[in-house]
């Protein structure tokens, strides 16, 4: 793989990327080589991104490592068309739910899902399946037909397709959460002694647990059962919330906290981060070898000292069609082999009596 001489304007190196994802780990040099190759590609093929880079004085000649690649703020996915391939020719577009700025949604175009799916498979197998080939899954989220632009809907449906055992099913439909259905599935799993996996959005778990608590029911799922929740941290910024949440999961479903996995993913990325359970919160998150993260001062973009809080920047090589490197709004702190996710950096509260942006937006909504 000759990545030191990126050919500007060349087609996306999808084959090399798939091979890169398939290999066992990578060296720093290999990661940089692929990152620079993709940067050159995106710089050449993506006009808004090129202008963004010009504003930062970053060109393929000057960028020497993945750390030098200008990080595009996630708002850029709302305001700019960040796609190397014309969007009309792309097979899929994933969109954010658009909660912070009304109806303006961030969009991530995928020419096809080969790389996205490959990125998902190996990582999910290692971090969630942990050697198990298939497991019966209950999905607390709508399916892809209902939400064709949701990356999470695709994630969960693809999980069922690739790793779900017979009897796997979605329990959120047009009528909302099917409490009776999921209760029946949980009871049946409890009787059968076969491991069961419950996966979905964190808020769906909260809703389900409220309903079960109201009905006085709880379960002892068989050994090997596991839980995956995602997306709940934006509203839960305090450790005590994590504690209560994972305690409640363990209590309600009989799944020990170390088998309750939280997935951290974003529409703007094509890869996911996982922790190794939530016996201790906040848990350390880490990703596969094709994604790297750093923690920065959001203003200067400079990296913060290890152990200091900063804003997460991710360089995801699987994001070959939009931009590899994004500046999130998530606060984290570095830990050996990963980072702690501390929640979203809420807009600063008004310190004086001048109107704060958040209050203004709320009033305008």
């Amino acid at each position: 793989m000759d990545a030191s001489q990126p050919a500007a304007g060349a087609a996306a190196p999808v084959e090399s990327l798939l091979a890169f994802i398939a290999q066992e780990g990578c060296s720093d040099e290999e990661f940089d080589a692929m990152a620079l190759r993709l940067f050159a590609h995106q710089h050449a093929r993506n006009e808004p991104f090129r202008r963004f880079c010009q504003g930062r004085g970053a060109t393929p000649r000057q960028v020497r490592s993945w750390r030098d690649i200008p990080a595009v703020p996630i708002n850029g996915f709302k305001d700019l068309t960040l796609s190397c391939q014309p969007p009309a020719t792309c097979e899929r577009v994933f969109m954010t739910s658009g909660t912070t700025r009304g109806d303006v949604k961030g969009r991530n175009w995928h020419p096809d899902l080969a790389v996205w799916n490959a990125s998902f498979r190996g990582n999910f197998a290692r971090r969630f399946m942990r050697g198990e080939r298939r497991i019966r899954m209950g999905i607390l989220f709508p399916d892809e037909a209902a939400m064709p632009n949701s990356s999470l809907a695709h994630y969960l449906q693809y999980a069922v397709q690739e790793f779900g055992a017979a009897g796997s099913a979605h329990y959120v439909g047009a009528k909302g959460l099917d409490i009776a259905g999921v209760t029946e599935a949980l009871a049946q799993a409890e009787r059968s002694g076969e491991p069961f996996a419950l996966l979905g959005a964190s808020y769906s778990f909260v809703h389900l647990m409220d309903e079960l608590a109201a009905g006085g029911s709880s379960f002892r799922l068989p050994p090997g059962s596991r839980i995956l929740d995602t997306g709940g941290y934006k509203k839960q910024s305090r450790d005590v919330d994590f504690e209560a949440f994972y305690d409640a999961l363990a209590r309600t479903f009989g799944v020990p906290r170390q088998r309750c996995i939280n997935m951290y993913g974003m529409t703007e990325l094509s890869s996911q981060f996982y922790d190794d359970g939530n016996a201790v919160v906040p848990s350390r998150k880490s990703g596969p070898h094709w994604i790297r993260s750093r923690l920065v001062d959001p203003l200067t973009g400079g990296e913060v000292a290890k152990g200091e809080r900063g804003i997460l920047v991710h360089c995801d090589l699987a994001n070959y069609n939009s931009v590899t490197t994004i500046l999130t709004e998530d606060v984290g702190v570095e830990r050996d082999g990963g980072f702690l996710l501390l929640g979203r950096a809420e807009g600063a509260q008004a310190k004086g009596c001048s109107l704060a942006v958040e209050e203004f937006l709320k009033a305008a909504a």
Partner: protein
Amino acid sequence: MSASRVIAGWLPGLADDEVQWHALTFGTGPGQVQVDVPVLTPGQMRALAGRVRQSAREVLQRLTVSDIIEIVDAAVARLLDPADPCRREAERFLPAITGYDAEMVRLGLASFLKTFRAPQLHRFVAEDFANPKVLDEFQPAAKGGAVRAFGPSLLAHVWAGNVPALPLWSLACGLLVKAGSIGKVPSAEPLFAGLFARLLAQVHPPLADCLAIVWWKGGDASAAGALFAEADTVLAYGSNHAVDQVRLQLPVTTRFLPYGHKLGFGMVSRAALDTQRAPATARLAAHDVVRYEQQGCYSPHLFYVERGGRVAPREFAQYLAAELANLQRRFPRRALALEDAQAIAGWRQSAELRTLAAGGAELLGGADAAWAVSYSDGPQPLAPTAANRCIQVVAVDRLDDAVALVEPHAAFLQTAGIAADPAELFRLAGLLGGAGVTRIAAIGSMTAPEAGWHHDGRFNLADLVRMVEIEQSAERAAERFAPYAQEDLG
């Protein structure tokens, strides 16, 4: 220098060891300051309310307004004296607590405090009462009979924010209408109000029990509830949400005076945009931006600049940028918390993305500058920036065009800074007043309201009082019962 510690609050009748204290810490390292704030039980709060109400009746209500003005003037004179221990305490701790530059705090305090000297306080009273003596005794009413203004027997103040000394506004209002006052300090600046109470007690010891300064943790309904049940009038400052939380705790009979967060802006007419006046106006605008880092309700977040002058709006933005760069040397911006940095970064990002998406937009000030000017060639709606010296400059063909851009936000309007010729000033003032603006100031004075201003367009003193009237009928009837009355026996 090791970290220092100071006690906040003013609790007449309560010894320090009778109450619990909560430590608030500000800053890090050797400059760190710990401020201990009192945490009262509901019972203590009720007792305090009773004591303050009683003392106000016995002491404050027997003074004339002129007596009170003299006392406040003497206390403010001490705060204006650089050698005074209270002044030194304020200068020592307020920069550390608020994070504002020490020199900015010093100058800001002086310019604010001088609006509370005796002549200004007399003016303040005269603004709301044509005959200030109505605050002391019954005065003849124009329609006949007599009238007297009574302040609340217990006035509760809920302050917000960290702009130093701001509680002095409502404290002075309370004193002038002879109300017993209990003020709740914000966690962001818990020191000044207690310091002022201490000064007043030193200047006029009988006043010591006429006011109290307390604190409670946000969301602690028990201490707050105890005070709100006792007060007959409640003043609250803060976000709409915070103010609404206070409102929900009040009995329906309690008079409630909310002061929500506001959004300031400026307008620069082509008359002010020649080669001499434009740089001067930009310098004044920069001062308004830098003063308290745009945290004031009167602070500007956007300047609408008219096209057609000798100096184009874009050049004005550049002058403003240059002045902000200058002021950074004189008044460096405080160190930013991660959340503030993220807010600025977010604001910068949107400004930057606008420059990529559309022509005519520009972001002045690099990522390492402690200020930023976002310039737009086309109309932009009024919106808050991330403060901390982030300012928008928007070109408009005519300043009248800007009125429509601010009008949708009427509920958040207060101060507009205007640089225009006299005829235009009055014309624009008419339009802006109709749109919701309540205060029009010179650019450069936006952040220093003059004595006697009507905060948010309200009558700050008149809103606090009850007018008690003796009708002519009562007066006439009384005549009949006078010992000297001549019964008409005919």
